[in-house]
């Protein structure tokens, strides 16, 4: 098989190749997603695949898993040419995949999701009990105490991703493809996953691992393959490379690392734009999703909400948007009390949420990129009583440029965009409404370093323009750089609040896990207090 220029070192003492893609090219109408790419999967190793959003990673994986067929090029299984005409055939060959966009059945429960089409039966009867037992074992491995009988519809993103992983683990595969498996996982959950990956390695399973979390890649990766614009950019053993190398190979240009911007003078004097006072939200079937949450945000401030999954961060945002009428407590926007306002009214008042689950809450899959972006701001493009195409398109194209959304034309169906670019589209929709307070729930999920940098830059820029930006993230590293202030939620309560200079990993983790006594909320910070 052909060897890429700098692939020399890695073939020396490398374990055998199970699956190889040779000169694989994939054309979509109007896009060349893959351009004669070579890729190999080593047995008992973690084969990392990285690249910018839209580089072609998922497409390549879909080809390995039999979802898509290559326009040209071929696959070799144990050196023998093979053709996967369906995921079924791929699975029979021992290829398992965890898709980037979750593929679950909301109407079925966890164990049914895991065993669908591979049910455990006796005499043609499905052994639900048995399935649930196995499911519980799998979930224990993943350290997720979930009830196998819960409907997947009622799970949140992170939990759904766990189910996907469990599903893949339940079928003993020779090759396991993971397309951004940790995008919705917390540090703890990720660690659990890594333990499992190590275990799989020892059992000789070849793992393909895609992620945009570069540090993570280097910790578990054995071999790194970099794609750029559908071409093979580089290959190397993981130990021989570092983050700057990765960034350089995948982006080509040097990306400005996310920075904490210089504080704007007098910001702290300004009146708070958003005040939340003793917000509480009961959870169905007992307990509170949120309990007496109070916080204030000033114009031009970036406030991060940190916490573990299930901490209630998403609910906090949902309450602010008015999705939970049963919530109690008061919310003030620019001093004005908000209670009965509809979502539209809140948007017009300058509140905008970029939801965490882009597929279910963010996108209209049947509309084009353009129409998705303008959806929340149509009124602004109305002349007389119809839409002005020209003005609408102008607004849309500006954002596509600002956020560097990778799409052939604004009229492309949204489904044809890569995961990360879809995320950008949702963000673009939010920005087009010209909000005063922007609520970003996991805005950097599934976004490449370059784009992440861009998004943080945008957040900084918006803050400089006087916007208040609240963002939820499960990524510790992000906490140290961008936010002026971090509020940690734990089990629905405010478990701590830290100013930029106070933020340390230990403190955040302690607070998130509820081990730290919440000090009296310090917000708003005293004007004298200098930022560093």
């Amino acid at each position: 098989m052909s060897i890429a220029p700098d692939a020399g070192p890695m073939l020396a003492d490398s374990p055998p190749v199970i699956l190889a893609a040779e000169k694989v090219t994939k054309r979509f109408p109007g896009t060349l997603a893959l351009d004669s790419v070579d890729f190999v999967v080593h047995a008992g190793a973690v084969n990392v695949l990285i690249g910018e959003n839209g580089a072609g990673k998922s497409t390549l994986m879909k080809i390995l898993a039999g979802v898509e067929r290559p326009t040209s090029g071929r696959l070799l299984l144990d050196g023998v040419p093979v053709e996967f005409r369906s995921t079924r055939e791929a699975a029979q060959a021992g290829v398992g995949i965890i898709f980037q966009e979750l593929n679950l059945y909301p109407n079925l429960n966890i164990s049914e999701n895991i065993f669908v089409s591979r049910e455990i039966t006796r005499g043609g009867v499905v052994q639900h009990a048995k399935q649930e037992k196995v499911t519980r074992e799998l979930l224990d491995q993943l350290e997720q105490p979930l009830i196998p009988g819960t409907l997947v519809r009622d799970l949140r993103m992170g939990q759904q991703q766990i189910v996907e992983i469990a599903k893949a683990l339940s079928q003993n595969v020779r090759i396991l493809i993971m397309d951004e498996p940790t995008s919705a996982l917390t540090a703890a959950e990720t660690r659990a996953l890594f333990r499992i990956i190590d275990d799989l390695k020892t059992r000789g399973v070849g793992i393909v691992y895609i992620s945009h979390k570069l540090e993570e890649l280097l910790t578990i990766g054995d071999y790194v393959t970099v794609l750029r614009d559908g071409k093979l950019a580089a290959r190397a053993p993981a130990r021989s490379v570092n983050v700057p190398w990765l960034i350089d190979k995948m982006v080509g240009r040097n990306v400005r690392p996310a920075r904490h911007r210089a504080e704007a003078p007098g910001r702290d004097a300004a009146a708070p734009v958003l005040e939340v006072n003793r917000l509480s939200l009961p959870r169905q079937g007992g307990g509170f999703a949120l309990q007496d949450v109070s916080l204030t945000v000033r114009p031009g401030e970036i406030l991060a909400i940190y916490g573990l999954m299930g901490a209630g961060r998403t609910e906090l945002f949902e309450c602010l948007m008015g999705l939970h009428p049963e919530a109690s407590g008061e919310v003030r926007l620019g001093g004005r009390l908000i209670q009965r306002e509809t979502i539209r009214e809140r948007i017009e008042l300058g509140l905008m949420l970029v939801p965490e689950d882009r597929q279910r809450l963010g996108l209209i899959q049947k509309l084009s990129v353009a129409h998705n972006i303008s959806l929340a701001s149509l009124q602004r493009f109305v002349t007389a009583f119809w839409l002005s195409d020209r003005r609408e398109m102008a607004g849309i194209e500006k954002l596509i440029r600002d956020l560097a959304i990778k799409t052939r034309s604004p009229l492309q169906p949204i489904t044809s965009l890569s995961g990360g670019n879809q995320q950008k589209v949702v963000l673009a929709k939010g920005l087009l409404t010209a909000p005063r307070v922007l609520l970003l729930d996991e805005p950097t999920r599934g976004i490449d370093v370059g784009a992440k940098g861009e998004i943080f830059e945008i957040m900084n820029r918006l803050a400089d323009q006087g916007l208040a930006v609240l963002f939820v993230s499960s990524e510790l590293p992000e906490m140290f750089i961008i936010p002026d202030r971090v509020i940690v939620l734990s089990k629905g309560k405010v478990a701590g609040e830290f100013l930029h200079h106070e933020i340390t990993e230990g403190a955040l983790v302690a607070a998130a896990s509820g081990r730290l006594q919440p000090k009296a909320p310090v917000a708003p910070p005293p004007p004298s207090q200098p930022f560093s």
Partner: protein
Amino acid sequence: MHIPAAAPVSAPVKPSGLSLGVLLFRLRALIALCVLTGIFSVLSPSFFTQQNLIILVGQTAINAIMAVGMTFVILTGGIDLSVGSTVGLAAMASGLLINRGLPLPPLGVIVYFNVPVIITLSLALGLLVGAFNGLLITRFNVAPFIATLGTLYVARGTAQLSNNGATFPNLVGTRELGNTGFPILGAGSVLGIPIVIWIMVLFAAVAAFVAGKTPFGRQVYAVGGNERAAELSGIYVTRIKMTVYMICGLCAAMTGLITASQLVAAHPGVGESYELNAIAAVVLGGTSLAGGRGTIWGTIIGALVIGVLTNGLVLLGVQEFWKKVITGLVIILAVVLDQLQERLQQRLALRRA
């Protein structure tokens, strides 16, 4: 955001999971059923008599059997408008086979079958119609609504052509030809219960088992829940869809045989607009037309609601036009009641919080 709201109620309830009480409570339209029964029992002395209840259930059976098949189709997110015509077609087939036999021109002979064979052949015809629908929907991916609408016309037309618009009368068969006994299907009874009812029970029980306990059943729900995911996780979506439409065709044919047997005649127009009743029963039973959610027992309850209503209104001798109005209102109220009960449940759930 009523989508999640609906979830707890109409999710495929696993009997194993919860007590029968809860199960019943969870079935849609049950309240409506009780209320209606109550009202009619009060208004008409002859309603809540054993005899009438048997007749009522018997009349319901015809619709229920179709609805059972329809449930599978709707669970996959499809729909079958052709059931009514299939009823007519199967009826005519049985009529033809009994009165005329099967002419085999090449051999220059006419073959007469005995009743069991005739029934089998007519049911097979139903399967065939279903397969035709399935083929259109899977191979040529025609939208189920359109595909089955087409079949609705084709099958009806064929039924009418089969005897050039005329009825096959007096389907008693003759001893010499050994094809007597067809009327028993519709008129006979075992242990005092009409055979029709036994058939309904059989179909319902088997269907409920298949839907709830077999891999096929799970996969039907899966296809309805997320077809693309189903494709990707190796389910033979095409095969599943083919099968559900064939099941639906089979059930419709069964209904056709029963009506023919009851009327002791095969009328080419029989079954017209039955599809609406069947679908109504399914939806009243809490199955979501979007697919993926619903139960067979729910469907049976739905069919009973319609059955009780029709029977009761006849007993009260309500004038035809008022019948229509009342039927409409009840159908709507049945579901509204349901929604309210559901919300109540949620309110309570929160209260408990």
